[in-house]
């Protein structure tokens, strides 16, 4: 009764050594390739992810921009673009969460965890794939900004520093995304994050100058980590909106870096811990 139904082929054994950085990198590359295959097989969500921030820029710039008072006057796009670069990074949070939580819900994460592969490889693969995605998104936004008349005014080096800051923001959000993705009960619960992204962004200096807000809201908006990145990049680009007074404005770059380092310091270990002790 228990005879073989199919002719047995020789089954390869796992024979090669199972440790070392080399294998972790090889495994990470396999995971990155998986994401790139996803892009090719299901391009729609990826492309929407890239085009959506462009739509937001056009909507705010052209529809509302005329009615918004820009600090020190000037073109609204000059004020808006640095904030929108930061917000583009924030949209990436959702991409990471969906990818992580879908793998958990489908059992793919358990499959990875039952393999003798490095757990760092799974995370590293996710990290590189998402950063690549966001870099393309950021590049598209930079081109959009240039077409709409936005410019940087303090040299290429400072501009590159600002772009680096956006990627650091994305890196910090990556760890939040992995943690919340592991905690989420399934892809459906990501919807709440998609909604919360908006009040979180409105309560910052992305779209309007906090000076126009009531005092108590102004404090929240100024201390919002998204504002910190936006202010710091406005300072590096010499775009309007960075000259405000007070400690927060005077130390924008420092505050941005500290905020992001703080987020990484909290969520990186939390994510690793949660991944190791995932019990679903």
């Amino acid at each position: 009764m228990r005879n073989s139904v199919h002719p047995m082929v020789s089954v390869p054994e796992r024979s090669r050594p199972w440790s070392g950085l080399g294998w972790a990198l090889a495994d990470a590359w396999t995971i990155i390739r998986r994401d790139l295959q996803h892009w090719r097989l299901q391009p729609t969500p990826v492309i929407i992810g890239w085009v959506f921030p462009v739509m937001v820029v056009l909507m705010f710039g052209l529809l509302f921009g005329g009615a918004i008072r820009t600090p020190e006057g000037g073109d609204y796009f000059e004020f808006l673009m640095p904030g929108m670069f930061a917000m583009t990074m924030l949209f990436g949070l959702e991409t990471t969460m969906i990818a992580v939580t879908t793998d958990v819900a489908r059992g793919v994460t358990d499959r990875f965890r039952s393999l003798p592969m490095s757990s760092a490889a799974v995370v590293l693969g996710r990290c590189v794939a998402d950063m690549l995605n966001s870099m393309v998104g950021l590049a598209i936004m930079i081109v959009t900004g240039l077409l709409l008349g936005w410019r940087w005014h303090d040299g290429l080096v400072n501009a590159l520093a600002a772009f680096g800051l956006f990627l650091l923001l994305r890196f910090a959000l990556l760890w939040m995304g992995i943690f919340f993705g592991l905690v989420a009960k399934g892809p459906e619960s990501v919807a709440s994050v998609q909604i919360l992204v908006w009040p979180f962004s409105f309560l910052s200096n992305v779209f309007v100058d906090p000076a126009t807000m009531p005092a108590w809201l102004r404090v929240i908006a100024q201390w919002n980590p998204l504002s910190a990145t936006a202010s710091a990049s406005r300072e590096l680009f010499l775009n309007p909106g960075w000259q405000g007074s007070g400690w927060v404005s005077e130390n924008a770059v420092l505050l941005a870096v500290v905020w992001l380092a703080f987020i990484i310091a909290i969520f990186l270990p939390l994510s690793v811990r949660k991944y190791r002790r995932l019990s679903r």
Partner: protein
Amino acid sequence: MKNVEFAIAAHGVRKQYAGAVEGAGLNGFDLAVRTGSVCGLLGPNGAGKTTAIKILSTLLELDAGQASVAGFDVTTQARQVREKIGLVGQYAAVDEILTGRQNLVMFGQLNHLSHRQAQQRADELLEQFALVDAAKIPAGKYSGGMRRRLDLAVSLIVSPPVLFVDEPTTGLDPAGRREVWAAIRSRVASGVTVLLTTQYLEEADQLADQIAMLKAGQVIAEGTPDELKATVGGDWLDITLSPGVDPGVVAPIVQPVASGDIRIDPELNRVSVPVKERTRALVTVATALAAAGLEPEDISLRRPTLDEVFLHLTDSQQPGTESSL
């Protein structure tokens, strides 16, 4: 692989979930599965079957007790354990966007085959599991049976000496179920140790050499399917009556040959009698029924089903009833 008598061994394993309402944890779980055999872990929902599999496959940490797989401790030697196991989950754990072949190649590479080896192995497995036609279709578009077969194929890319199979046929139609059974049997033939959980007694009967019955996180009985069936008290004599005939009339007639409680199934209008001496009981009952002027539709002798064994064992767990084990 280390030469061990028992490929899977668990002793006094405990696991409680924080805030869990129902008792899906383990509560002093003991199990020993001989190398090269197939053990069916049988029990209703919430008995702890999946928890047991997750602990043994290093996905979940145990609270207390000790467990080893292929001679390696699941807590202190998790990495070595992972090198020896394959896991087939309750849900088909494959990437739904990738095609069947891309899934096999990816997991082949994560099993550290070279790209060429992984591709070769993927093609072999696609053929072995009758998925060649679906090789280039995203796994998300597969039928339940196909997806489960792909899941199984992914688990068998490299040859794991120990295979965990968690409810492989839940939610499949009969055809899909037979496909998966055939796939599992083909692996068993090559000497793999298998721990299989199932809610279906027929499935355990079909595939397992040894069955462990799980209730509330504890193994309440263990043995071959035949041994477990014997605990109910031998064979059953089924007397199916014509519609309208009161089974209550038959009960006193068969009472003298009964070795245990008589069961009456009103829907089928059937009286089931546990008997010790097969043929003598059959002849005695047939003669007595004829003498009483009753002509049943069918009289047959059969071995007990595992359903009856399970009910018998869980009944005998009630306080005040003597357990036969």
